[in-house]
């Protein structure tokens, strides 16, 4: 993966995780890879932040976990989006866009 590798901005990790698993259920390593992929390699998620967030979101009911088999025939824990999680993704997306709009507005004013 090329490009600057930076950690995700604070507060955006949950959003990115939700987005990453919205397409299909993934295990921890897979989610990290997917986030790198959908951000064109810019954001590198550390496992030390990822796993705690995954477990927290599972406890909050946005993700559901199931044991399955990985692509290389290893047992792994897969996370998928729950209906509540889907709603949460939408909410966070809207919040993000609104925030970006506001900052944009602020920066454009003279």
């Amino acid at each position, binding site marked *: 993966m090329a490009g600057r590798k930076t950690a995700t901005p604070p507060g955006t990790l949950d959003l990115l995780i939700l987005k990453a698993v919205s397409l299909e259920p993934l295990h921890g390593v897979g989610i990290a890879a997917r986030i790198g992929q959908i951000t064109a390699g810019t954001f590198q998620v550390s496992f030390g932040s990822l796993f*705690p967030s995954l477990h*927290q979101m599972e*406890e909050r*009911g946005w993700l559901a976990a199931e044991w399955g088999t990985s692509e290389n025939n290893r047992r792994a824990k897969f996370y998928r989006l729950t209906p509540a999680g889907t709603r949460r993704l939408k909410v966070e997306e809207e919040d993000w866009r609104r925030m970006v709009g506001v900052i944009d507005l602020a920066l454009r004013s003279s």
Partner: protein
Amino acid sequence: MRSRVAAFFRNWFGRRAAEESLDEEIRSCLEILIVQKIAAGSDPQQARRAALIELGGVEPLKEKVREVKAGHVLATFWRDVRFGLRALRLNPGFSVVAILTLALGIGANSAVFSVINGVLLQPLPYPESDRLVRIYQQNSPTNRFSLSVVDFQALQELQNSFESVGGLARSRGIVTGSGRPEWVRVARVSPGFFETMGVLPAVGRSFLDGEGAAGGESVVVVSHSFSRNHFGEAATALGQTLTLDGTASRVIGVMPPGVRELAGVEADLWPVLQLSTPARRGPFFLLAIGRLRTGVSLDDCRLDLADVSRRVFPIWEDTFQDETARLTPVSLREATVGDVGTALLLVFAAVMLVLLIAVTNVVNLVLARASRREREMALRSALGAGKGRLARQLVAEGVVLGGLGGLAGRLLAGAGVRALVTLMGDLPRLQEVGLDLTVVGFTSLIAVMSGVCFGIAPLLFSVRSDLATSLKGDDRGVSAGGSAQIFRNLLVAAEFALAVPLLVAAGLLLTSLWNLQTVSPGFDASNLVTARLELPSASYPDDLSIQRFWNEALREIEGLPGVLDAGISSGVPPDEPGVTNNFDLVDKPVEPGARQPIAPWLIVTSGFFDALGLPLVEGRWFDSRDHGESSPVAIVSRSWAEHFYPGESAVGRRLVSGGCTSCEPTTVVGVVGDLKLQGLDGGGQAVFIPFGQVAWRWMTLVARVEGASSSGIRLLIDKLQEQDPNLPLAQTATMQERLSASVSKPRHWTLLLGLFAGVAALLAAIGVFGVLSYFVSRQGREMGIRMALGANRNDLVLLVVRRGMVLAVAGLLAGLAISIYVTRWMQTLLFQVDPADAVVLAGVCLLLLLVALAGCYLPGRRAALVDPRQALMSE
């Protein structure tokens, strides 16, 4: 939120499963990463290392996940608690000593606090008890006394601050009729008394206003237990008649179960108080209670009562002069508890000191142990535990220790309260004392607070941030030297300093008690027996009949073999003067309106003086010249004569008794040796009146008999019984028993304080022992070096002992300074002892030095047994 809560319960009850699941998840991710890296070209070993680095280590990662899961804090706390318990189990020596020390300190504290709570702090068990007031007469800041009938009636008619007022006259009485005549405690109360207190009979009714008039029907309210013993069920008691002091009284009410005393006076029966219009202002025997109107303060009340006093007292001036006397209100709680407060607070202070010493000891023990765990702490730190995490763990362990100590203390407290209640049987309100919730809360608070102390103490000194040094295992870390050692030494010195005031106080009380017990009561107390008797008014309606009975009885008794002398008196040494009367000296009267002097006023036969063996200093004894028709005479005590007629003879002087200016003055005909009547610590003034001139219903027979006292008493009782078979039982005691009972209260306090002081000294010894033991175990290498350099074993022992003694002496000096300052206010509790008594102070110093030596002994011996080669090689 709901799912978080569900997660909490899932995490808590499925802990093991969750842990396994987490482990499997992280490891599977590790595997996947490794496989990916191998597929990308790394060799297995490199792939593994790279994967681990990328994950950040399996354990740290797992820990990070655990930290965010619901219920994490609780789980870690629980784990720490379990670890703490296991650590305590593995260190039985430390644990047992620490927990016992805490149990002692906390238990003693809670027990005493329970007593203080019940006696001092809790409100009285009456409805709205803060509005209850006891009304005294007060004529000086320190002199309060009861009311006379005049005062009470004036109070009832003229006061404005109370919504109701009640009066009480206490006495003992005899109930006859059913079986054996029986002594009962009697409290005659006015109509309105029960309403004032707020405690009404459960069955029947209380008194009507009209029933308080003289000459009316005798009605009585009985206690529940009395009713049960005599009539069975409460309801059947109503309407029954009982004979009290020869008078038939009708039962009109039964008090609720458990009511044994009202306004601080214990009673079995509450007959109605019937008052007639008085002829003179004295005597003073009524206890008056008032319930303040809502909104009226104690100060308002005081002004109102002063006004009443001003209006009424001048009317009765001829029979009692006292310009300064005022009716004064005192809150009932203060009146009941009185000066017990000071003594109790003293005990509480003592107990607090012991607790402080106990906690100090345990902190010391904890610190000593903590230093040995530095390596463990360093390892944990390396494994990823943050400073905060370590701190939480240490605090949890401390709380476990404190909690166990508190639990043990709670058990001890229960036993302690029972012991205290038995020991201090004469404290007011003692029946209200119990180990209640307040105290349990108090105990728990102390336990938790001390637990936190124990947890934090090691943190302040032991947890190093320099991992490397700690991991190397250099045992002489921070906690072995430098600031930690100084702190521990200070703690031990402080323990000694705190033990000193306790020991000094105990020593002073002991000396005071000794003085009390050895002071001469004025006579030889051996072979003296007493029997107190009341002649019922039904069979002995007047003075003549009373005198006839006693003259006959005394003649018979003196004729008995083995009886050397016998006499009767209205008062008994050492602490029952009977009546104190006011008087005025004819040739040296006091200013009009000023307070007249008072003295114990006893009615006696001359046999009384003979039985006690009092010497005649001047003048003559009473004899047949002194009878009802002749002029009133009196014999006075030596100190009375010296006080009122210093350097002159008191014989022939005249005095006016009881403010009765219209009566014939009394002439002093003799002076006798002093006799203690107002307690062994009281003075010896007394005035004696011949029985031939004034007879009294209540008299005590005093006789000197040969041989064993209990058989002597039997003789007397039988003789009295012979005179009148219907006589109720007499209260008997030997004079020795009376003297001993007289000092029972000081004896209790001394015992209690002595106990605490002993515990404090013991704890101080343990403290110095602990610190020195630790010192010896740590300085092994240094000891070895010294021996190699030529020191012999004795030098080593001396080194250790000197170290310990320096601490003890430093503490001792500090403690002496504290105690000299503090014991000053103990003066009121001491009899003929100076608070800075040199003997006591010297004795305490000696004792503590011995105690310190005892504490140094074992560690010293251990130092002497150190093998120099092993010591040098072990580090």
